[in-house]
């Protein structure tokens, strides 16, 4: 069953405090980066649920997020739905799409699962790129933000929007914990450990995978709806497979299957990216080198490294066990 070690709780608290502090004190540029981090964190949280806890390494989550952004834009700007309904609609659309993808891909494993999800992601990318309703290469603009002025919250400024994103991320994190603690989440863990055994126990394995994939897709779609509101403009580049690849990189950087890790990873990745791109135009080189180093070090990302180093005795034992299991499972037969 999923539970937080005290160290993870501490990291989570620290992150929340830092984000809140940043949201209340930072200037415009800092707030923009914070919002970017919060939205990326939501996407990689969704990815961590399927990849870290379900062993389903998906390369279509970028496309799901982009799909959510486009669904929101079309529902709000084109169909004239109120933003809140459009957000719910976007999450529902991506959730349904993700459920279907999960159901179709449930039979594949390892590299084939990665390829199958990649195919679906690219299919969505090509479709959005070609179909005239999505504005093609030009993208779509004029996307409205949610209007909460009735309850006294102004989302048009960057501070208000950053705080709003933080609140949504907190809610999503809570939901993710609930999902993982539910019967569905426990079944998912069982499926990851031994699919055969779960099938023998009478579980419909593909249903569990599809349901979790669908829920994860909803979260990714929600992140997309927020991303569309953040920049108020979207382009097909959002759905590109490199976004999914980057999300995977962020999850690994932070720590797979820890739920806190993705948040740490998102913050580290974007801060690194902004700092490095200010110094050198070749920041990809550095990020690539760091990624290679992280994977080759065999620690489970930043959080795994922290746990191995500073974890309390109980935590350390748990972390050690998890790490051993993880490097065998994740690196062995992802």
């Amino acid at each position: 069953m999923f539970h937080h070690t005290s160290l993870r709780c501490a990291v989570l608290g620290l992150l929340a405090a830092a984000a809140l502090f940043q949201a209340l004190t930072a200037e415009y540029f800092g707030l923009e980066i914070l919002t970017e981090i919060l939205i990326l964190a939501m996407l990689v949280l969704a990815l961590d649920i399927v990849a870290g806890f379900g062993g389903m390494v998906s390369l279509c989550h970028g496309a799901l997020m982009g799909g959510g952004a486009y669904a929101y834009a079309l529902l709000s700007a084109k169909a004239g739905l109120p933003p809140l309904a459009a957000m719910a609609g976007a999450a529902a659309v991506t959730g349904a799409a993700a459920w279907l993808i999960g159901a179709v891909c449930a039979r594949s494993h390892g590299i084939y699962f990665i390829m199958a999800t990649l195919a679906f992601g690219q299919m969505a990318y090509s479709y959005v790129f070609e179909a005239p309703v999505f504005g093609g290469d030009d993208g779509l603009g004029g996307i409205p933000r949610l209007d909460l002025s009735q309850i006294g919250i102004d989302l048009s400024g960057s501070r208000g929007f950053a705080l709003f994103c933080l609140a949504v991320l907190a809610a999503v994190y809570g939901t993710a914990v609930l999902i993982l603690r539910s019967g569905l989440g426990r079944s998912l863990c069982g499926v990851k450990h031994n699919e055969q055994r779960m099938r023998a126990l009478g579980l419909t394995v593909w249903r569990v995978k599809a349901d979790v994939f669908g829920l994860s897709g909803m979260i990714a779609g929600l992140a997309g709806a927020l991303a569309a509101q953040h920049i108020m403009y979207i382009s097909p580049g959002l759905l590109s497979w490199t976004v999914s690849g980057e999300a995977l990189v962020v999850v690994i950087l932070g720590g797979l299957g820890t739920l806190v890790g993705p948040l740490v990873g998102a913050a580290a990745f974007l801060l690194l990216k902004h700092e490095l791109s200010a110094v050198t135009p070749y920041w990809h080189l550095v990020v690539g080198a760091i990624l290679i180093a992280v994977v080759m070090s065999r620690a489970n990302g930043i959080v795994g490294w922290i746990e191995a180093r500073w974890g309390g005795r109980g935590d350390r034992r748990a972390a050690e066990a998890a790490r051993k299991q993880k490097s065998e499972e994740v690196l062995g037969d992802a």
Partner: protein
Amino acid sequence: MAHDLGFWMLQALNALQLSMLLFLLSIGLTVIFGLMHFVNLAHGSLYALGAYFAASLAAIGGYWMGFFLAPVAVAGAGVLLYSGLIKRMRNSGPMAQVLVTFGLIFALLDVTRFFWGDLALAIEIPAILDGRLTFLGIEYPAYRLFIIALGLAIFAALAVVLDRTQIGAMIRAGVDNDAMAACLGINVERLFFIVFCVGCGLAGLAGAVAAPLLSVTPDMGLQILIPTLIVIVIGGLGSLKGAIAGSLVYGFVQTFGAVLAPQAASVLIYALLAAVLVIKPAGLFPAKG
């Protein structure tokens, strides 16, 4: 136009040309996977590297110098990659390999940008291949015919080496069951090293050949990667028959799709891939074992 035989011939040749280019890339990738279950996502970056080497060498000594030396140079880069990185990642699972080679894509992208800049480079088609050939009532660029011929020649050469020579038998044994092959006294480790370098060289060759057709840009490796992966997944990872079948399927579906159903063309190949994965999750011609 659609009832004209010449038109179909033309499209078939276009499809064949695309297939042969993809074949050069996928054969290296698939044998590397088949032998050692190593997923090298950076294979596309090696193709881009080949195109850049070819462009630089062509500027010094003409097209043919690039054509012959770029594959060698890329194979050399393969040696560096192998000894520095891949050897150590050989026994990790696909997930770790995907990530390390993903990091490699990032790194190689910036390495090419660093040395050659962001602007697209161009290579002249050599004089002997510049122009069009007329046969069976159609005109076709000689250079594209050259690519088809080259692809077929490489295919024939590989088929002979793999089917008729001892090293081919060793490779096949390694693909089928590497542990058993090692027990029989085959140095699978060294075999893999050789195959890896040859695979890199073929990727470099593909880059050198494609360079005059497409412009040479840093992201050309990223662009070709997805089609290559589709080819080997449709064909079946690790299978030689699969590489050629997958290349032909991709080339023809893509080319004729663009002609017959332009609206659906881009989605068509992905839908086909999804269908293949649903019906035969291991591809059309999966490697045994």
